[in-house]
């Protein structure tokens, strides 16, 4: 009983064709080196998402964007964004100044800032020490640094699940049935916070 195996891990990923990388890049490819991201302290799930590389599309601090972002380029956001991010075969990193109100779907997701929305990753999700996430996380692997704040559900998928499965609609928490495991998002509560 105590050594229950992990058989039958829930997985809500529905195989679908890969998302077409049609939409234009958000900003012109830029060369600047991204800000350093602290290494995870928890070795259980090493951060497998590589740092944002040259050629990554960037939305820097001070910029706001609304709408849907899709395509195949890696994306770094340190500004504000509202809408939806679908980069099924790319990596998305939210910088420390990033304020996102969007569902994010990507191969790898790194959060150092604040996200209100569901995260769905084909490979891994990493929550940095100052990250704040309000929404569910659906991923085969997750890394959580001490100090990270997550309000929502963590659900693990199989690593071979296609990353392009569509994100579920955000709705009030924990409404899923036992087997389909739809990630959920919680309603916002409060504003200011004192970090521990």
């Amino acid at each position, binding site marked *: *009983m105590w050594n229950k195996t992990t058989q039958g891990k829930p997985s809500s990923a529905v195989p679908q064709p890969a998302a077409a990388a049609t939409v234009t890049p958000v900003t012109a490819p830029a060369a600047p080196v991204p800000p350093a991201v602290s290494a995870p302290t928890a070795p259980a799930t090493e951060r497998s998402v590589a740092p944002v590389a040259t050629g990554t599309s960037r939305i820097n601090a001070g910029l706001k964007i609304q709408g849907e972002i899709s395509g195949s380029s890696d994306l770094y956001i340190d500004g504000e964004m509202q809408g939806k991010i679908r980069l099924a075969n790319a990596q998305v990193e939210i910088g420390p100044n990033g304020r996102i109100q969007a569902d994010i779907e990507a191969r790898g997701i790194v959060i150092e800032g604040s996200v209100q929305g569901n995260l769905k990753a084909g490979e891994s999700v990493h929550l940095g020490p100052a990250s704040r996430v309000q929404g569910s996380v659906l991923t085969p692997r997750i890394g959580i640094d001490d100090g990270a704040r997550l309000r929502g559900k963590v659900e693990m998928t199989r690593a071979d699940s296609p990353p392009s499965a569509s994100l579920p609609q955000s709705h009030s928490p924990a409404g899923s049935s036992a087997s389909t495991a739809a990630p959920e998002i919680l309603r916002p509560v409060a504003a200011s916070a004192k970090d521990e």
Partner: protein
Amino acid sequence: MNWTAKIRASAPATFSVSPSSKAAKPGPVAAVAPAANHRVSNSLKEFLWLISDVPHARVLDLGPVWQSTVSFFVDKGYRISTEDLLRTWKEYLNAEEERMRTAPIGEDGEKLSPSMLADKFLEAALQYPEHSLHGILLWDLLDYFDPGVTPRLMERVCHMLHPGGVALALFHSRPAERFQRYRIIDSQTVELVAAPTLAVHAHVFQNREILELFGKFRSSKTFVGRDQVREALFVR
């Protein structure tokens, strides 16, 4: 759930400061600092045992999110949700205070009673459907809530728990000397993580008060540690 249906020989809870007695385990456990406090928790063991019959049980941790806790439940095939309730409450109070401070005189600037505060808070927090959870980890957070708030909170906890579901709560027998959070190391060990004080210890519950608080629950079981912390399990 019937306690007698699942009989387990249980030793009294013990408290260990030195981690040296524990063999280092690979993975998350290895990340524990050598000086960390570990607590052998029989209530956690019992909690896990009680939900073990439920395939893919849904568990809500009302403390902060920890890698080790998430990994622990995910590895067992459970679904884990987290909501740092005490922090959310403090943020809510701060926001409420700010609202009162900035509200023009005579316009919605009335001070709310604890129960009204709780009701307003619960309009946004702990929004889980009825009977949707099989286990809730409350840790010691009830000690830090205003006594006027805890009954409302427990109503919601009861509402969210599936019949037969179990809630785990810790109660200090005297005001806690320091504020700490809890993370699961293994099926019977939690780590006490010292943290900057988020809230002051508000109330020392008497056993009678605890039973009243969990009055809607079907049964309860309490383990008392050498440090006089009471670990309680309540089955809905």
